[in-house]
């Protein structure tokens, strides 16, 4: 019994010490109208209790998408499943998505999805996200984002010292892992379109330089270290080029670097601020921020003709634009009357909408690879945290930090 007590004390210590490092948690702060009712039953368990509650993870994923009203009660669409231990740390997981009432007059349930997997205990959590993706796609016709990742910068101030950590976590904030730890600022993480590399700006040599780091191995390369600004890296859709901002000519201008040859092509040539390039999904255009009209606004540059068109007119300040995956909209940071909000502009109709009607400033919008949500930096009682908002404005989520401040987020592409 004494032994058990000491094990317990030890376990409590582990629990407590880990609680201090508990990951980002998700809180639904706005929603949910027009959501589809979906019943997710607890999975039946056979043998050893698995380390992850798969039904709970799926419920959490789908609820936070804003598209589902999740319960364990009755609904037309039901998710049921089972987890069975099939060996040392091996589990067989099966689930069905069943539609109970299909059409008028028929009461025969239809099996919409029926899958079976065998995975290790460590893979249960990512399997749950995979199942969420399958259900989301079946019910909405859109690919789910529950297996994607987030990159962001954590700033920890302790006494006079500040620590900056570039972290990568699962889309729900779990599994945070450090990519770079530094005593100097880190900013502007950008994922390559295959999700294998992240470009970022680090001030570790007392000036800004752009690095590219492989996510799996942590191997990294210094790619841009010119005099002045080296900033705002953005990957071309084919992953071969990096658009970036250099002020080596005296003013910040936009360049494209061919990563294999390191050859630079200068795209803007003026003495204003030109920054924050972002590629269209087809790679034919770049949007960027410029103050050439007197204050920051969004411009589009054609890669073929190099012609520049102004895209934003609403608001005194528009910056950090990026295209939605369909290329038909851009999201951006917008300031109209004091507060900085996240907005979305329809490029066909020119209709602009503010997505975050928040009472604080927001920053760094980054769109999900399926176009459904925008990730951004925001404030919670004066502390920097991450937020998400649906591109139709229907749902808003806050991801409070474990420790310190979280800022400058970037949503990964789909992980293949």
């Amino acid at each position, binding site marked *: 019994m004494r032994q058990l007590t000491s094990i317990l004390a030890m376990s409590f210590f582990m629990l407590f010490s880990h609680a201090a490092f508990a990951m980002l948690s998700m809180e639904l702060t706005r929603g949910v109208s027009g959501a589809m009712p979906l019943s997710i039953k607890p999975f039946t368990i056979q043998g050893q*209790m698995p*380390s992850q509650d798969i039904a709970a993870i799926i419920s959490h994923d789908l609820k936070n998408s804003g598209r589902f009203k999740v319960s364990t009660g009755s609904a037309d669409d039901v998710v049921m499943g089972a987890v069975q231990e099939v060996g040392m740390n091996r589990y067989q997981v099966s689930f069905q998505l069943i539609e109970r009432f299909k059409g008028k007059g028929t009461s025969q349930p239809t099996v919409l999805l029926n899958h079976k997997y065998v995975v290790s205990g460590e893979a249960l959590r990512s399997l749950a996200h995979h199942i969420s993706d399958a259900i989301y796609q079946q019910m909405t016709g859109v690919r789910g984002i529950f297996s994607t990742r987030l990159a962001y910068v954590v700033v920890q101030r302790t006494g006079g010292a500040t620590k900056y950590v570039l972290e990568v976590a699962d889309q729900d904030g779990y599994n945070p892992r450090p990519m770079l730890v530094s005593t100097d600022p880190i*900013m502007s993480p950008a994922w390559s379109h295959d999700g294998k590399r992240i470009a970022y700006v680090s*001030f570790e040599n007392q000036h*800004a330089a752009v690095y590219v780091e492989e996510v799996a191995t942590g191997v990294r390369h210094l790619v841009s270290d010119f005099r*002045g*600004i080296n900033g705002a890296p953005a990957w071309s859709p084919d992953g071969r080029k990096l658009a970036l901002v250099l002020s080596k000519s*005296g003013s910040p201008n936009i360049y494209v670097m061919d990563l294999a040859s390191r050859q630079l092509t200068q795209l803007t040539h003026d003495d204003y601020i030109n920054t924050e390039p972002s590629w269209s999904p087809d790679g034919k255009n770049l949007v960027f921020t410029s103050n050439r009209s007197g204050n920051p606004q969004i411009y589009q540059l054609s890669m073929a003709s190099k012609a520049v068109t102004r895209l934003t007119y609403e608001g005194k300040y528009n910056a950090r634009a990026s295209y939605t995956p369909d290329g038909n909209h851009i999201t951006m940071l917008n300031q109209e009357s004091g507060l900085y909000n996240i907005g979305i502009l329809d490029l066909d109709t020119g209709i602009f909408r503010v997505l975050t009607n928040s009472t604080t400033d927001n920053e760094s919008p980054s769109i999900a690879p399926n176009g459904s949500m925008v990730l951004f930096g925001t404030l919670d009682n004066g502390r920097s945290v991450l937020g998400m908002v649906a591109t139709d404005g229907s749902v808003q989520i806050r991801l409070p930090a474990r420790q310190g401040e979280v800022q400058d987020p970037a949503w990964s592409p789909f992980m293949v």
Partner: protein
Amino acid sequence: MQLKHFKYTLLISSILALSACSAPGHKGQDEAAAAADAISGAQTSGVGDSSNFGDQAGGPGQSLAKRTYYFDYDNSQIHDQDKPAISANADYLIAHATARIILEGHTDPRGSREYNVALGERRANAVADFMKEKGVSPEQIRVVSYGAQRLAAPGRTESDYRLDRRVVLVYSKK
């Protein structure tokens, strides 16, 4: 007792499960972290003891010692009240050809991070240009913009922002 035992087992396994999901990552990440630790030992900027330089320079020490210059929102124009101090430091640099400075440009935290880096550089360049016009050699000046990455006042009020929007002149050892 049996029930009690079951409860403990459940508690332990759930604790272990919780620890497992927040356990450190695989080897590759640990190596990345180790590599990162190796570089993070780098010194921060701000080399050189400012008060020593002030003492050595003598003369209008008050003006020479003023090395933080404030700016208006989304603006890189030097305030008139800062010009005597910038001039005094320019004179010092002209008289001491081996002296070197770093001009650090900063902004308040609102708005876009990379735009703020550009804005911070414009502010630092404005001070650099003013000094070059006075006759300071470009070789003596290095400009670095931190944008909103190093705030002077971490609060979110207008009086904090006023302290954040600044250029800091630092005498460097090289």
